[in-house]
């Protein structure tokens, strides 16, 4: 990310149209989120849908979420206990330990059923259905 930003700072890069830079910036940010997000970048740059999942009382709400492909899903931990978002089949990257109020976002580009759980409280399970 840093290296790319430095590249743009060179004089010839300044001639680039601002909207091109903006679009590239969006792509960069999206691709930082997770491997799944990289494939989603084209769709995401067109229309970024975001859906929230709340983590409260050791449960995901909603536990099952159905979204169109390209949706960015954001988990936010409202518990005092940390939680770790983990894909049941390693279909997307795990979050770090989410402390209170921390969020984690994954953009789902491909249709499918994505089961996930909290790796340290495994009875906490959820499903994202991407259509």
């Amino acid at each position, binding site marked *: 990310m840093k290296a790319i930003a430095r590249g743009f700072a060179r004089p010839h890069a300044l001639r680039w149209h601002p909207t091109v830079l903006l679009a590239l910036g969006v792509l960069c940010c999206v691709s930082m989120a997770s491997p799944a997000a990289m494939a989603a970048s084209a769709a995401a740059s067109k229309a970024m849908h975001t859906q929230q999942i709340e983590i409260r009382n050791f*449960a995901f709400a909603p536990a099952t979420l159905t979204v169109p492909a390209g949706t960015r899903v954001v988990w936010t931990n409202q518990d005092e*206990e940390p939680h770790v978002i983990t894909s049941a089949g390693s279909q997307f990257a795990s979050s770090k330990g989410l402390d209170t109020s921390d969020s984690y976002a994954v953009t789902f580009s491909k249709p499918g059923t994505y089961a996930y759980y909290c790796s340290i*409280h*495994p009875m906490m*399970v959820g499903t994202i259905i991407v259509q």
Partner: protein
Amino acid sequence: MQDNHDNEAGGRRQFLKCMAWAGAGTLWLMKGGVLRAQPLGDGAATASMADASFSFAQISDSHIGFHKAPNMDVVGTLRASVALVNAQAARPDFLLHTGDLTHLSKPEEFDTLTGVMQESHARKVFYVPGEHDVIGDNGAEFFRRFGERQQTGGWYSFDHRGVHFVGLINVLDLKAGGLGSLGMEQLAWLKKDLAGLSAETPLVVFAHMPLWPLYPPWGWGTDDSAEAMSLLRRFGSVSVLNGHIHQIQQKVEGNITFYTARSTAYPQPAPGVGPGPGPMKEVAPGALHRYLGIRDVRHVQGRQALAVTEEVLS
């Protein structure tokens, strides 16, 4: 607090007074192969030590890094717990920390924990990790600092004055929808570890998450604990010590007695009370110490009994 402790200097009384937000552990008495818990700071602990052959103390769930209601000073409450163990008339032979040393597995949290535990007069501290200690690296940092390095999986055993101790790991490789897990490899090791022991050998088995289905809806249990228990059943005296749920729960199953310890940091609600587990935020500052504890065990040679005693910071 009993009068016979008052001569332990005004300092102790003073720190207890300052410990409105305090946590503690459990004092365990080993009496003839059977474990008895007693709250530290209770005069009864001193009395029952008379016929114990040795004791050790259990500390659990110190959650260094937690800084919210009801305990803004988890370092202070851990430090007070260690001081309480140090203040025991007979020094416990060693300490057990049954996991969740830290809240988020951060190096600086492990550093702080190490610093406080160095204040202990105990010759040795044995650790097992909680799920809070293995975030992000499957426990690599925990095992590097606190591991016994007997087995690659981190589990271990040792003998102490006729009692066989086993430290198990049940917070790694957890399966979606499941509870704590020991795994095939660890169970195979346990079988081998116990194979040479006579049924008269008192056993103390410790792990972070409860090794019995205490309250599965809240994740309070271990998926394959029944397999472990089947290996322990032939022994005459088995004590299973756990943490994780931040409160005392006990259960007797034949010759196996299960205990969970208090936290040195904050209490959690009784099973099924309220919407979920987590800190009891509404505990008043002055009342917190009643929920926190140290466990001390003393062993009496020649009898098949351990004395387990609980102590609260009161």
